[in-house]
């Protein structure tokens, strides 16, 4: 079953990104998922850190055409290339922070606790948060370089990201759980960081993929939707409107269910976990394609054979 395969790959990727650096793996500094650089021994840097670190300095105009400016562009191009190749698969299949959230969700399911639901309106209201975070993330380095903002605002998003305290725990590092009393700004950031980390962990327990609703990586990957090799499409003429896709979606996307005219249904929140595709009981209605090759397409037989055949509370 696709979901089981995804879980397997996610677990493998978690180990890879968290411990890969220790065996010498380094996949670069433009990774489109939360492979946190604060983890000692990580196998690549999350692109958000590169974006925050390089962005401000690259805008010294005389240096824009220099080697330094070139490096910023290079990292950006590598990022675009990686997102073109795998698009949102980075989110749903590879991101270790996403995997962590799914483990928490599994724990909740095992305990039989119901998932917290947001009303459609509330869910819509939460969507702009990721754009705000992305904007702050990009503007802050410019403000530091040109606007005289205090240097301790450096790596603004990294300092409040829940990945910073939580992910290094898996490598035995608890340093980022400390409150930093060096000055007011560091203290504020460390307090915020811990509050956000606690809130995220708790939120992820009660709601599937809680943090992914706010992740600024999503708009960056969504940017290359039109040029990506991965296509997420719906055949609107064979959809019977049953709503299975909306029910199964971990990030509460309504677009796949309610879309009646457009073929492309890769919405901004989508993580390509393909649960909607698996749950769709009409043949070839929700499809994920890589170039011309069909990665997965919905089918009635698949639903009949894979769902609730002998499931019990123990699963």
């Amino acid at each position, binding site marked *: 079953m696709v979901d089981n395969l995804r879980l397997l790959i996610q677990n493998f990727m978690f180990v890879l990104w968290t411990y890969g650096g220790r065996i010498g793996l380094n996949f670069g500094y433009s990774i489109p998922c939360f492979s946190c650089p604060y983890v000692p021994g990580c196998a690549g840097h999350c692109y958000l850190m590169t974006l925050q670190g390089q962005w401000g300095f690259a805008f010294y105009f005389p240096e824009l055409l220099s080697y330094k400016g070139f490096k910023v562009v290079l990292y950006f191009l590598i990022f675009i290339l990686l997102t073109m190749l795998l698009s949102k698969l980075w989110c749903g299949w590879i991101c270790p922070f996403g995997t962590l959230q799914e483990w928490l969700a599994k724990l909740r*399911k095992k305990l039989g606790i*119901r*998932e917290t639901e947001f009303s459609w309106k509330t869910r819509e209201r939460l969507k702009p948060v990721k754009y705000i975070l992305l904007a702050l993330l990009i503007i802050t380095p410019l403000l530091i370089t040109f606007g005289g903002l205090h240097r301790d605002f450096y790596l603004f998003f990294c300092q409040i990201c829940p990945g910073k305290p939580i992910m290094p725990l898996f490598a035995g590092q608890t340093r980022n759980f400390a409150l930093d009393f060096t000055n007011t700004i560091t203290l504020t950031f460390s307090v915020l960081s811990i509050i956000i980390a606690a809130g995220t962990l708790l939120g992820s327990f009660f709601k599937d993929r809680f943090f992914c609703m706010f992740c600024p990586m999503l708009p960056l990957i969504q940017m290359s939707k039109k040029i990506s090799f991965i296509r997420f499409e719906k055949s609107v*003429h*064979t959809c019977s409107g*049953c709503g*299975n896709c909306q029910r199964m979606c971990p990030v509460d996307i309504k677009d796949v269910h309610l879309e009646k005219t457009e073929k492309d249904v890769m919405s901004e929140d989508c993580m390509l976990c393909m649960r909607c595709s698996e749950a769709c009981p009409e043949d070839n209605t929700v499809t994920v394609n890589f170039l011309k090759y069909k990665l997965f397409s919905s089918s*009635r037989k698949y639903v009949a054979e894979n769902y*609730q055949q002998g*499931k019990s509370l123990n699963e």
Partner: protein
Amino acid sequence: MNKIVQKDEERRLRQRAKAYEKTCEEYSYEISVLQARTDYIAEFDYFLDLLTLLLHPAKLKEKVGRPLIGLFCIQAPLELFHALGVHPVKLCSGSYAAQRLSAAYLPALMCPMLKSYIGSSEFAASTSTCYDATIVPTTCDWVVKVPEIAKETITNLHYLELPHVKQNEKGVRRWLEEIYALKLFLEQTTGTKLKRQDLMNSMNTFMRGWKIFQELIELKRKNIISGVWVTVIANTFMLDDITSWAKKIELVVKKLQSKQPAANPRKIFLAGSPIIFPNLKLLQLIEQAGMTVCADDLCSSERIFPGATVYDDPSEHGLLKALAERYHQACICPTFADNERRINTILRITESNNITGVIFHVLKGCHPYDIESLTIEATLRANGRKFLKIETDYVKEDSQNILTRLEAFAQTLA
């Protein structure tokens, strides 16, 4: 005065007894017609036996060993009943003799299926004690009023107020509340509390049944089994414990799997008002006209239960939500206001199975399907399908008329 009243009463009782006799005759006749078919196999016997149980609910109750709950339509989640240890039975009736009994005092334009039900509810055999409760989803106008007319025989009534707009949050939430109300009602009626594991087991059981039913439908698409038999089998749904029923279907599937599909260029898709045993008139006429029903989306046939109740959240709330949403949003009954994607089912199936003709069956008095046929006809014609609307009743007199029209239609398909 008393004498007149008494005479009246006696006459009525005689009428009822006669109607009951006629109904039983009707059932036996139709069963014998089925048995006499050329494609009859021994495995169908089980289903034919079940059909008579509709007239003897007490026997049904004994057979399944659980209290019976009467139901209309297909929106109430059957798994919920199963998990609480009760057995839901559809009360829709297809008997012409029963219809005639009640047609005397019911409006002429009323849904014949419900007239038939009201008539059959007056039979002595179908006493109210057989059903512990009756669940009525407020789908069409007639079914909403049925309990008022048949109030002597409908016991322990519970309405499920069906939101007719199903694609917005309000409708989804309201229906979920109805399901919770249903759960509460059933818990009070049965005196047991719903357990999460039981509900999950019921959902598993029904999914397995659905899976096997889909295999049967596959055979129908390939024209290995006739559409008449599939409708008959679907009509016996919930006349026995679902696991045994599913096993018997498996036997049929196994027996017929290896057969070669018969070629027939005159495949048609049947849509519209439900066809309920023993009213197999239209199906038989279609066959007589040389066409085969390779697909249908009748709520008494292929859509008898929605299946595919997938869930993500396995808590009790999540399971109930999955059931509620599946039985609500996946239902393409024309009673819904925002049902425009209903046409996709017809388009999809006719496209993938090379079916060119669509026959739309409307029962006289069935307003939702009647109105729906307008837009459906327009869209299907625009998509290159042949369309024929047949408006009929339970009467047999118009058979020849219909047959002529069907034969003419069949010519256009070739």
